[in-house]
C-alpha cells in the first residue's frame, strides 16, 4: 500500500507554548488511524495542523493525490444563524466549484433524507448535525477524512450510527480515516493504527501491540490529564 501521509519531527508552538513536540508517524492509504490522549494533549491541534490551518515546524507530507475532508469536534457556530443545511453545503460546493448534484450525493452517503437540506441548522438533532457535518466534509470527494471526536455530544445510539458510518466510509469507499477519540473501545474496533499523544508521541502502531498497559498508564496517569484544552 502507498503512503498517504508522512509526518516527521512535527513541532507546533502556540502563543509561545509547545503544544506538539517531535511527532513522527505515517499512514498508508485506506488505513484507519486513531489518535488518543487525555484532554489538552494536543489532539485537536494535531488535526488542524495536518489540515494546514495551524503553522508548524517539521515535515507534513501528504501524497499528491490526497484530498482532505474535516469533521470538527464542535462548531462554535451560532445556531440562530438563518442558515439551513443546503446553504451550508452549497457554500462549500460553490467555493470548490462542484456541481449541485454532489450535494445530494453527499447527503445520501451519510444516510440523511433529502428533506434535511431544507432544515435550519438550529433545528437539527445532535446526530443529524454530526451527519450534516460529515456530508459537508464529503463534498469534493476527499480520500482522507479527519474526524475530531465525532460522537462527543451524542447519545449511545447516535454514536453507534456515526461509527458504523465511519466504518462504511473506510471499508466501502476506501477512505483513509484519521479519528481523534478518547474511547479505547473505538480504537480496538475501528483503527488499524493508533497514535498515543500527550504533547509528544507516546506510542504508534497496531493497537494490540502499541497499547501496552505501561503506555496507557503513562498516557493517562500523567499530570497533564487534568489540564483542559479550552
Amino acid at each position, binding site marked *: 500500500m502507498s503512503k498517504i501521509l508522512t509526518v516527521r519531527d512535527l513541532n507546533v508552538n502556540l502563543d509561545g507554548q509547545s503544544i506538539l513536540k517531535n511527532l513522527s508517524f505515517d499512514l498508508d492509504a485506506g488505513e484507519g488511524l486513531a489518535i488518543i490522549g487525555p484532554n489538552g494533549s494536543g489532539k485537536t491541534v494535531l488535526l*488542524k495542523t495536518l*489540515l*494546514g*490551518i495551524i503553522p508548524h515546524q517539521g515535515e507534513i507530507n501528504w501524497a499528491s493525490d490526497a484530498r*482532505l475532508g*474535516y469533521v*470538527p469536534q464542535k*462548531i*462554535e*457556530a*451560532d445556531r440562530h*444563524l*438563518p*442558515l*439551513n443545511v443546503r*446553504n*451550508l453545503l*452549497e*457554500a*462549500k460546493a*460553490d*467555493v*470548490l466549484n462542484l456541481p449541485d448534484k454532489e450535494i445530494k450525493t453527499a447527503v445520501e452517503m451519510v444516510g440523511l433524507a433529502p428533506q434535511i437540506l431544507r432544515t*435550519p*441548522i438550529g433545528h437539527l438533532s445532535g446526530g443529524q448535525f454530526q451527519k450534516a457535518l460529515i456530508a*459537508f466534509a464529503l463534498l469534493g470527494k476527499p480520500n482522507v477524512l479527519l474526524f475530531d471526536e465525532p460522537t462527543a455530544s451524542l447519545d449511545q445510539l447516535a454514536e453507534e450510527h456515526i461509527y458504523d458510518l465511519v466504518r462504511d466510509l473506510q471499508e466501502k469507499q476506501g477512505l483513509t480515516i484519521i479519528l481523534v477519540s478518547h474511547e479505547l473501545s473505538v480504537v480496538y474496533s475501528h483503527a488499524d493504527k493508533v497514535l498515543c499523544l500527550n504533547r509528544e508521541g507516546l506510542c504508534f502502531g497496531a493497537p494490540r501491540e502499541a497499547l501496552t498497559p505501561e503506555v496507557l498508564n503513562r498516557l493517562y496517569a500523567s499530570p497533564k490529564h487534568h489540564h483542559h484544552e479550552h
Partner: protein
Amino acid sequence: MSINEIYTVILALITSASASLVGSFALMKRMTLAGDAISHVALPGIGLALLFGMNPTLGATAALLVGILLIWNLEKRTGLATETMIGVVFSASLAIGALITPQEELEQALFGGFAPISFPAFLIYALLSVLVILSVMALRHRLVLGLFSSDLALASGVKLKRLNLYFLLLFGLVIVLGLRLLGALLVGSLIIIPAAIGRQLAHTFSGFISMSIAAGLLSVILGLAVARYYGLDVGPTIVTVAAGLFILSLLKKRI
C-alpha cells in the same frame, strides 16, 4: 421634482439596497455595533478635508480606510479589550471630528441632507453601490462558510483574513456612499436597522437577505415622502421610519 431630487431619490434607493445587503452579513457576523462605530470615524476626515479646502467625501474615505485597517487588525484578537478599544477610539474620533468640523457644515456632516449632486457624481455613486451589491453576492458563499465555522472555512480553502478585509472595505464603501444622505452619525442605521427587520421577519437565508433589502427600500421611500410632506430633515426622518418599521416587525410572532 427637480432633476436633482430625482438623482437623490434614485441614489438613496440603490445605496439603501447595498447598505441593507452589507448589513445582513454584518448582523450575522455580529459586528453591527463595531460597524456603527466605524462610521463615526468619517467625521474627523470630513472636518479635516473642509479645514484644508478639500473634498469632504475624500476626507471621509481616507479616515474610514484608516479605521477599517485598525478594526481589521484588532479583529483577530477577540474579547473585551477589542470592544473597549473600538468604543474609545471611535467615540473619540466623533468628538474630535465635531471640534474640527466648521459649525456651518457640522449638521450636514452629522445628519446628512438633501445636498445637490452633479450628474457625474450621481453616476459614480450609483455604480459604486452596484459594485458593492455585486461584490457581496460574489462573496456570499465564502462569507457563509466563515460565519458558520472559521476552521471549516479555512479547511475548505477560504482565505478568511483576506475575506474579512474585503468585507470591511465594502462596509466602509457603503458608509461613504450613505454619508451624503444620512451623515456620519446616522449612516450606520441604514446598514443595521433594515437587517434587524429582515431577521425578525424571515427565517431562511435568502428570505432574510430579501426582507432586509425590502425594509431598507421601504424606509427610504417612506422616509423621503414623510420628510417632504412635513418639511423635515431627510436623514433623521428615514432613520426614524426605519426604527418604526423595526418596532412593527417585533410584533410578528416567531414561528
